[in-house]
C-alpha cells in the first residue's frame, strides 16, 4: 500500500528568537505539518554539525536550523558563527552522499510565528519531494518504501 511518504524533520531552534517564534505559532493556533520535531538550544551558535549528522543518521530526512536574524542575536554575534558552520556543512554533505538541500537555515525573530510556520510547511514539502534519506543504519524506517539509491558524490565542490 503506497501511502504518501511522511518525512521526519528535526528542527533546531534558539531559545530567544526562533523557539519563541514557534511558541507564537502555537499561541496563534497556526497549523503546520507534524513532521517536524523541535529541539531547543540557547543559541544557534550551539549548533554542532555532528548534531545534524547524528539526526540524519538516526532517521531524520531533513534538518531545519533556525536562529535570530543577523544583528539581532541575543548573544550578539553567535548566529554568524552558526551561519559559517552551516555553509561549510552544506559543502560537506554531498561528500556523504546527502543532498545539501536536506539541511536548511532559516532566520526567524520572536515575532515571526507566521513566517516560521510557513517555512516549516515549505520545508516539509521540499523534503517530501527529495524522498526518504535511508541512511545506512537508518532506524526509523521500517516501512517498506524500499531503499532509495543515493549516489556517493565523488566531486568535491569548489
Amino acid at each position, binding site marked *: 500500500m503506497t501511502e504518501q511518504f511522511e518525512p521526519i524533520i528535526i528542527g533546531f531552534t534558539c531559545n530567544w528568537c526562533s523557539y519563541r517564534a514557534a511558541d507564537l505559532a502555537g499561541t496563534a493556533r497556526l497549523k503546520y505539518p507534524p513532521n517536524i*520535531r523541535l529541539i531547543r538550544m540557547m543559541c544557534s551558535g550551539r549548533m554542532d554539525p555532528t548534531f545534524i549528522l547524528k539526526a540524519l543518521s*538516526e532517521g531524520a530526512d531533513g534538518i531545519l536550523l533556525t536562529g535570530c536574524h543577523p544583528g539581532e542575536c541575543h548573544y550578539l554575534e553567535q548566529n554568524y558563527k552558526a551561519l559559517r558552520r552551516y555553509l561549510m556543512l552544506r559543502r560537506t554533505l554531498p561528500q556523504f552522499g546527502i543532498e545539501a538541500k536536506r539541511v536548511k537555515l532559516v532566520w526567524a525573530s520572536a515575532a515571526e510565528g507566521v513566517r516560521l510556520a510557513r517555512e516549516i510547511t515549505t520545508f516539509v514539502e521540499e523534503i517530501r519531494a527529495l524522498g526518504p534519506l535511508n541512511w545506512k543504519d537508518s532506524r526509523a524506517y521500517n516501512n517498506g518504501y524500499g531503499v532509495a539509491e543515493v549516489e556517493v558524490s565523488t566531486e568535491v565542490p569548489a
Partner: protein
Amino acid sequence: MSAAPKSEKERVGVYVCHCGTNIAGIVDVEDVALWAKKELGDDGVVISRDYKFMCSSLGQELIEHDIEIEGLTRVVVAACSPHLHEATFRGACDRAGLNPYLCEMVSIREQVSWVTTDKVKATAKAKAMVASGVERVIHNEPLDRMYVPVHPDTLVVGGGIAGIQATLEISNSGNKVYLVEREPSIGGHMAQFDKTFPTLDCAACILTPRMVDVGNQPNVELYTWSEVERVDGYVGNFTVTIRKKARYIVEADCTGCGICWEKCPKKVIDDVFEAGLGYRKAVYTPFAQAVPKYPVIDTETCIYFQNGKCRACEKFCPTDAIDFNQEDEFITVTVGNIILATGYDTFDARRIPQYGYGRLANVFTSIEFERMCNAAGPTDGEIVMRDGVTKPKSVGIVHCVGSRDNRYNSYCSVICCMSSLKFAHVVKERTDAEVYEFYIDMRTAYKDYDEFYQRVLEEGTHFIRGKVAEITDAARQPGEEGKLIIQAEDTLISRQRRIPVDMVILSTALEPRPDSKEVGHKFGISCSANGWFIEKHPKLDPVATMTEGIFIAGAVQGPKDIPTSVAQGAAAAARVLCHIGQEQIELEPVRASVNADKCSGCRICNDLCPFNAILFHEDLMVTEINQALCQGCGTCVAACPAGAITGSGFTNNQIMAQIEGMLMFSESNGMTRVAEPVAA
C-alpha cells in the same frame, strides 16, 4: 557519536498534562502516559501519569509526592512551553529535594496540540517528544545556581531628563551614582526647549531644579565633558573606565564668574546647544544654568590651541583657573549596575533637499525653532526670520520630516505632532502670523494631549492633511513672489494646494545617536534595525536589556516624550535598587567550562566569545572560561574539536539523547521502538 550510557538507571517520572482540552482535545494524553510507561520503562520510566492541569498546586504536589515517596531521580513534564512553566516545575522539584535542573519540560501544546489537526499524528508526535525528553533528562546533571554579589554603586550614562531621574532616585536612596555626560553640562535636549507640551511649562524651570539637585547630591559623582572608555565585568561587578576630557579649567579654583568667556575674542557658531542658530565663544558653558558651572575650552576653535596666541582667558581669570596643559584623566570605577540614558539625535533635514533646508533661508528645523522661542536663545525669544529682524506674517509647520518615510525612517517619532502644535500656539501667541500645519495624522495620544490639539484648533491654526511635496521659492502665481511656497495635496478636499508663507518649520524626526552601535558594543547590548537599543521585552520589560545589569531608559530605547522618559528613568532606578537591595544576583547555571586535561591549547574557541569570557593561560597552554562572564550561548562548546568544553544544561550527551529519542520510535509501526539507544 552517541550519548554515553549511564551505569545506573535513573528513576524517571513522566507527567502528561491535559491542559484542560488544550492538549487533551487533540492529543490522546492518557495513551501517551500509558505508552511512556510501557515503551520507556526500560530506559527508566517508573511513574507515568496524566493530569488535567499540571501547573496547578495539585499537579505540582503529584510531582513532589512522587519524588519523595517513589524516589524519583528525574522528572519530565509534557505540557506547555518551558517559557511559561519551567520555573514552576523546577520549583516543585526543588521543594521536594530534587535538584531543579533534573527536571525537563517538553512542549506538547504550542508545539503539538495547538499546531496539528490530525489527532493520530499529533499523538504520535507527542510520544516522540516525550521520548526525547526522557532520553535527555537521563543525561541531566544536577546544577547549582550561581550567585554573584552586587556592588552598590551605579553608573548612569547620559545626563538628560531620564538619566537625571534615575540618578536622583538611586542617589536619594543612599547609594552612590556615577553620572557620565558627554557634553559640558547635564540637561540633555530638554534644556534646549522653550516650553513643554501640553502644560506649556517652561522647560528650564522644571528641569534646572533637578539639575541642581544632581549637582548638590553628595552621593552623585558627576563627570561631565566625559565619556565611558571601557566596560569590563558582569552584572554586580562592572569595571568601568571613564575618560574625563580636559576642560583646561581647574575645577577646584573656578568660581563660574564668566569673565573668561566674556573676554574671549573668538566667537563661533554653536552647533550643539544653539542648534547652529546662535553663537558661543571658544571657552564656554553651553547655557547659563549649566551644571556643573565650569566652562570648557574648545581646542578646535580656541586661538591659543590653533596658533599659540591670545590666552585672554588666562590673563583675565581672577582665580588662575585656566590650565592649558591639562590632560584627559582616566578614572576607573567599580559598579554593580549600569543605566544607559544617552537620548536621541535629530534628523538631518538636508537629506530632504526638496524641503529647502540649508538652501532656502527661512526654512528652520524644530530644534532651531525651539532655540528661537527660548527667551535665553539667540533671538531672546523673538520669532523672526533668518535676517534676525523681520517678523513673519505667515508660518508653515511641516510634520513627519524624516519620519514615517520609507526613504529615511519608517517609524513615527511620537513627539512631533505635539511639538508642532506647541509651535503653532507659540507663534499665535507672540505674533499675528497665520499658521498652517501640514500633517499626515494627528498623534495626540496621552494625558491632556488631545485637549491641547482642540485648543490649538480653536486658536485659528489652519490644518492641511497632506504630506508636503515641495517647499520652493519659485513663484508661479501672483502673491507668491518673495515667499516660500509649500506645495501639498490637501487630501480632505482632494486638491493640490500651494500655500505661500514667510517661514517654514520642519518637524524633524528623532534618530538614534550616530554611535549607538559602538556604544552598544561597548556595553554588550544590541541595537534594533532602526538603531534604538533593544529592550528585554517590548511589552513587559522596556527598561532591561538582554544583558544582566545593563538597563536603558528614555529616548535611547525609542522616541518618547518627557513623562515617559522620566517614568523609564525611575523604572530603571527601581530595577537597580532591587539588585542592590538583594545584595546578590542569581545567575542561570547554563555555562560553559573547559576540561583542562582535554584542552590542547588550540585556541579555536578564544575568538568566539563576544562577552570576553574566554581566557587563555599562556603558561599552562590551556583555555579557561570565566563562569560569571559566560552567558551560556554554547558556541565555544560546539567549536571545540577536542570536545573539551562542556556546556552545562545543554551538553552534547543531552542533545544527542534528545535527537535519539525523537527518532527512536517508528510512527508507521504504531510508535514501537525501532532502535535501542546505541552504546558508545
